[in-house]
Each structure stands twice: as structure tokens, then as C-alpha cells.
């Protein structure tokens, strides 16, 4: 195997992982806000919540599109096997994203109270279902996909297992926590106080579920276990759980200190980052466990190189102006800030 054919898939696996992580970081709180509609009923507070993300939400979701497009162009075999295998949760996620995406605009346009309530509900339900499906997709991928002759060879409901359902639940709660911490940062007054209050029990559940998933995952594929408990690899991977624990301490101090606004969000993002890293450690170098590794899934070097040139230049530029957009709309969102 040539050097390029060996290295390019590794580079692309990192970029694809970054894309997914960027999506989780950016759209996680976004979906979490919608989930928090469950407990935030007052229509004025809901407006404030939506306004904290109104200028940036479609940029956030664009990372999901980039993830799909990269998989398509760079790891077409993964794209062509994962998507048919997870057809039902993926279609459900897409439909849910439609409902919540249009609700951003429609809820402000509703001309009767009932319609407004309907689009509020669609924002909440769309966010919740999208989050749960993303968790289920993740869980189903971790537990493994059956592939024969480069095509998905399993059944219609292979994805539906206790583990994938548990992951769906975990991601929903995790996003709700991100949403609550986002509101702690970007709002003030009563809404901020309540968000702080939501964050505490949510965090307890999230940490519990991180532990459960961490213990459960190695049971699914024996290979996963080896990545964590084989000497000397243990030295490299040991910091992951240690850092999670460290962030727990910082999180708890910051969420109870009313003068601190941003730190809780950063801690939770840290948890997501570490869990994601841990997941990467587990499944590497598979992209469709346990059938296809990144080299098997790869498109030819001519495709990967062509796209790499653009990605290296464009992704930093995208990050630059995304940061600019966030900076333009920085600061607390209050009664006096009206994006709608």
C-alpha cells in the first residue's frame, strides 16, 4: 500500500471526526434548547431562548451536511452501508430536523395562539426526536453493522437494541444539559436562575450515563476492550476518564457559583469532547464496526487529495467567519434584544 493511500484515510478520519465533533458542539445546545421547551412554558421566555440561537442555527446544522458529504466523498463504502443500515432512525432524524428548523421561523409567524402552540410543540418534539435519533445512530454504529459484499446485510430493525436506546436517551439528556448551560451563559434574570437549577440534576444523570456507556461498550465488541486495557496503551488512554472526573469538580463549583456564567458550558463541552475521543479510541480504525476499516471504506487517493486541498484551506476560513458571526451576536439576550 502506498504512503498516500495509507495516510490520506487517516487524515480524513481525523477531519471527519472533527466535523462530527463540531456538529455536536454547535448543534447540541441548539437542540438542547428545544428539549428544554418541555419545562419552559412561558412564551416570552421561549422567545428569548430561541433568539439566543436564531442568527446561528443553520450554520450549526451545516456541519451535519458536511459530515454527510464528507462521508459520501471520502468514505463512500461507509456512507453506502451505514445509511441503509440505520435507515429508520436517520429518516426520523431528518424529519425531526425539518420540524424544528422551520419552527424557528413559523412560531413567530403563527397568527393564532393555537398555531403558535403547535409550532412550539414541533420545535420541542423535533429537537427531542432529532437528539434521540442521533444517540440511537451512534449506539447502533458502536454495537456493529452487518455487512456482506460491501452492502448492508442486516434486517430492518437491527439498530433497535437496549444499548442504542440507552444511547438515544443519554444524548437527549446530554443535549438538554448543553442547552441549560448555554442559557446560563447567554441569558439573565429568572430564566438564567432556572437554567442553573435544571443543569444540576441533568449533570448527575449525564455523568451516570457516561459511566454506564463506558462499561457497556467493551461488552459489545471484544476488540474495544483491548484498546483500553492493553499495556502500554493504557498510559495513553488513562487521562480520558481522569479528565472527565476533573471536569466534574470544576462543573459543580461553577454551576453553584452565581457569578460564573460560561464555565459550566465549557465543562459539559469538555465531557462531550472526551466521550467522543474515548469513542474514537474504542472503534479505531474501524469506520463501520466490525466490518470495514477506514482504508477499506476510502475512496481513491485522487478523490481524497482533491477534497483535502479544499478542506485544509476552507475549514479554517469557515471557522473564522463562524466565530465572527458568534462575535457579532455576542452578549446576553434579554427583553431588549429582538431578532424576531
Amino acid at each position, binding site marked *: 500500500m502506498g504512503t498516500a493511500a495509507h495516510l490520506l484515510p487517516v487524515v480524513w478520519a481525523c477531519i471527519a471526526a472533527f466535523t462530527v465533533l463540531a456538529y455536536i458542539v454547535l448543534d447540541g445546545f441548539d437542540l438542547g434548547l428545544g428539549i428544554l421547551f418541555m419545562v419552559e412554558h412561558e412564551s*416570552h421566555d421561549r*422567545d428569548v431562548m430561541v433568539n439566543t440561537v*436564531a*442568527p*446561528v442555527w*443553520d*450554520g450549526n446544522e*451545516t456541519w451535519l*451536511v*458536511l459530515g454527510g*458529504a*464528507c462521508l*459520501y*466523498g*471520502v468514505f*463512500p*463504502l461507509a*456512507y*453506502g452501508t451505514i*445509511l*441503509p443500515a440505520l*435507515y*429508520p432512525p*436517520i*429518516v426520523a432524524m*431528518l*424529519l425531526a*430536523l*425539518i420540524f424544528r*428548523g*422551520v419552527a424557528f*421561523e*413559523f412560531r*413567530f*409567524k403563527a*397568527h*393564532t395562539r393555537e398555531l403558535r402552540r403547535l409550532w412550539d410543540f414541533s420545535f420541542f418534539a423535533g429537537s427531542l426526536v432529532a437528539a434521540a435519533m442521533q444517540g440511537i445512530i451512534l449506539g447502533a454504529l458502536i454495537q456493529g453493522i452487518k455487512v456482506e459484499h*460491501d*452492502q*448492508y*446485510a442486516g434486517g430492518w430493525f437491527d439498530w433497535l437494541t437496549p444499548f442504542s436506546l440507552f444511547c438515544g436517551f443519554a444524548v437527549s439528556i446530554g443535549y438538554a444539559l448543553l442547552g441549560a448551560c448555554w442559557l446560563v451563559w447567554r441569558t439573565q434574570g429568572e430564566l438564567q436562575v432556572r437554567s442553573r437549577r435544571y443543569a444540576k440534576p441533568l449533570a448527575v444523570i449525564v455523568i451516570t450515563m457516561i459511566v454506564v456507556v463506558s462499561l457497556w461498550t467493551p461488552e459489545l465488541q471484544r476488540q474495544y476492550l483491548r484498546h483500553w486495557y492493553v499495556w502500554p496503551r493504557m498510559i495513553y488512554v488513562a487521562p480520558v476518564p481522569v479528565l472527565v472526573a476533573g471536569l466534574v469538580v470544576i462543573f459543580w463549583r461553577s454551576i453553584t457559583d452565581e457569578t460564573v456564567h460560561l464555565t459550566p458550558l465549557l465543562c459539559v463541552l469538555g465531557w462531550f469532547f472526551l466521550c467522543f475521543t474515548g469513542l474514537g479510541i474504542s472503534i479505531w480504525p474501524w469506520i463501520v464496526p466490525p466490518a470495514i476499516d477506514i482504508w477499506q471504506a476510502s*475512496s*481513491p487517493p*485522487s*478523490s481524497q487529495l*482533491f477534497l483535502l486541498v*479544499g*478542506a485544509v484551506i*476552507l475549514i479554517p476560513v*469557515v471557522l473564522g*467567519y*463562524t466565530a*465572527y*458571526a458568534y462575535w*457579532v*451576536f455576542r452578549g446576553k439576550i434579554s427583553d*431588549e434584544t*429582538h*431578532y*424576531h
Partner: protein
Amino acid sequence: MNGITALELARYQFAFTVAFHILFPSFSIGLAAYLAVLEGLWLKTGKQVFLDLFQYWLKIFAIGFSMGVVSGIVMSYEFGTNWSQFSEKAGPVLGPMLAYEVMTAFFLEAGFLGVMLFGMQRVGRGLHFTATCLVSIGTLISMSWILASNSWMQTPQGYAIDPGTGRFMPTDWLKIIFNPSFPFRLVHMGLAAFLCVALVVGATGAFHLLRSARLGKTPTDAVRVMFSMAMWMLIAVAPLQILAGDTQGLNTLEYQPAKIAAIEGDWTTRGRAPEILFGIPNMQTERTDYAVEVPLLGSLILTHSLDGKVPGLKDVPRADRPNSTVIFFTFRIMVGLGMLMFALGAFGLLLRWRGTFYENAWLQRFALAMGPAGFIALLCGWVTTEVGRQPYTVYGVLRTVDSVSPIALPGIATSMVAFVIVYFIVFGAGVAILLRMMGAEPHYGETGPDVHDPTRTAGTHPGPAQGSAVGHAGGAQ
């Protein structure tokens, strides 16, 4: 034999979702350009009417754009869910182009859309105008990539087939992107998007002119300006589009003669061919029933000479023929509507010369009726070119039947029902909202949606001191 197959249903589902999707980006492409022009005119002339129109259409743009975003996310995954074999084989060529589209266009649009919609009071006029232009440029870049991909499926080149896996291996990216039909399709599609928006803006203006006349009041400046701009656009672009369509026809004749034969309902190859104006092509009996023909015109249109050879479908094996019965009609609807667009533009020009441009109710009724014509023509054009590509996904190389996912019929049927229900609810509601917004007259000092929005909570009304700047912020909804 008579039952529907999973393959057919996968095609219908894809066609359904992409047909819904394509309407919104087309609207966004045209409208973003219009908004950039309006804001530019406002900055240059300082006239309030351009700012009013900008704000009026910006609200509408926000709704249309969000529907384009969410229906587009579906598309980026549907290649894999429905066409996994196609994705695995053609992914190395098409995937990178789609990814480039995301990186060069989608992020640009999404990144600056927030500033465009909500940022006027935060970033200042020059920067805001830049954001508007970047969003517009983003829509055009996006169109270019997607048209390059689609054109490659029609006229593939610059690849080699990997003998082991049957995958398309890119060998020359410039050839892939600038494939033979790309320039023609790009121009045709771009003009179509501009026509769609010109017709919608024209119909909106016409609606308000008619209503003002009925109520016996003077129409606002904004209404007159939008109607006039739309009619100028129409008379400028409709003839160009007819030329563009003609050159694309010549290109298709060169690379996809079977498609041309199916469009024309011609069965035998011959010179001095007639043009079949109407008829019903029958795929079984290999003839076009009830044909109404104009002698020699077929050769003249397709080859620009009276005795040029026009292809017939019988030259192609039965299994390789596109469905003439469908695209014979979709093509004629598209062309017919294109002619009507030109007629509308010409009628407008005539009335300008006569000095009754804003008063003639027939022009306004005509323009109102033509409001959706751009979208209908667009969809018919797409059906023509995509059904005309059958039975291949990559023309002449990869068959549709070898492209589909291994998904059983019940699965596709269930998701199809879900898509249909959700799309009709969501996009039905969206279109209802858009129509309601267009039904409200743009007025002097357009301040955004708050004026029209009785259910808004007190806290979200802008204070009087914040003035028109907030009107911009409000423009988003």
C-alpha cells in the same frame, strides 16, 4: 408484475423530496440576488422605497431559506439511504463535489445569513451589504457545484472504472467539473431561478396593484417599483432563457440523442424531420399517437438546418430508452410556459410604451396568473432532464437498477408515507405563510413583521426609540 417495486418507490421518494427541495433554493438564488440589488440601490440612491422593498422581501427570504436548509439536509443523506450502490460507486466523484459545495457555499450562506437578517444595527451599512452579497454569491456557488455534479451524471468524463469494485475513480477533476453539458445547464438553471423570482415578485406587485384599483386607492411606491422591476427582469431574461434552452438542446442532441428522441416523440431517425407539436408517445407500440406535426420544423429547431438528421428512439435498444410518454409532455409544458413568460414581458414593454403600464388590469391579471409559472416550468424541466437520463444514473455507464439500496419495499413505503405527510404539513404551512406575507402590502417605512403580527408578546416589540434599525432586525421573521 403489476405491483410497484422497491426500485420504483425509491425513485419516487427521491423525486418527491428533491422536487420539493429544488423550489426553495431556486427561490433563494433569485431572491438573494434581488435583495443584493435592492440594498445596493438603497445605499446608492438613499431612496426609502428600496429599503422598504429590501425589508419586505428579506422577511420572505428568511422563510424560504429555512425551508431550503431543512429540505436540503434530507438530500445529503438520501443518496446513501436510497442509492447506496450508486453512492459507493460514484461517491469518489460526486461526494467531493458535494463536500466542496458545503464548504464553499453552505457555510458562506449560513455564516452571513444571520448578519444579513439580524445584523444591520450591529455591523453598519457597508458590512451589512457585504453580508447580503456574500449570501447571494453563496447561493450561486452552491448552484454551480450541484449543477456540475448533476451534469457529470448526464455527461460523465474524467474517470476510470476500477475493475475490481466497479467504482468510478477520478482521473481528471477539471474534466469532471467542466463536463460537456455543465456550462449549458448552469446558465439554464441560473436564468430559471431568476425567472422564478421575477414572476413571484411580479405577481405580488400585480396583486397589490389590482387590489388598490379595486379599493380605489393609490398603490404605494414600493408596489409600483417591484412590479416594474419584475417586468424589466422578465423581458430581459425570458429571451435569454429561450436562447439558453435552445443551445442546451443542441448539446443534448450531441451527447444524449435518445433523450432528444424521447422529448420529441420521434421513433425513426431521419432528415427533414417534422416537429410533433402534440401527440401521445406510446412506448409499447413504438409510435406517437394523435400526432399533430409541423413539417421540417423538427430538423430546423434541433439542427438549425432543414435537412439535418433527427434521432429516433428505435435506434436505441428497448431496455435503454427513456420514457417518452412522460418527458414529451413535461418538456412541452416547460417550453409553453417559457413562451408565456416572454409574452408577459413583451406585453409589459408594449404597455410602457403606451403609457398604461401601471393601469392596465389585463397585464396585472396575466402577471398574477403567471406567479407560479417559473416553478412549474422548473420542475417540468427537471423531470425532463432526469427522466430523460433513464435508465441510467450515470448516463450510459451505471444503470438505475444497479444503483439502489438493498432496502425492502415495506421500509421504503413507510418512509415514503412519512415524507409525504411531513412535507405537505410543513411546506404547506410554509407556503401559506409566504403567501400571507406577500398578501400584505409593502408600505412606506416598512418596519418588519411586528406590524403584521398581533399575537406577539409585548416584550418583543421594538421600542419607538430604536426606530427603523430594529425594523431590520425584525426583518428576519
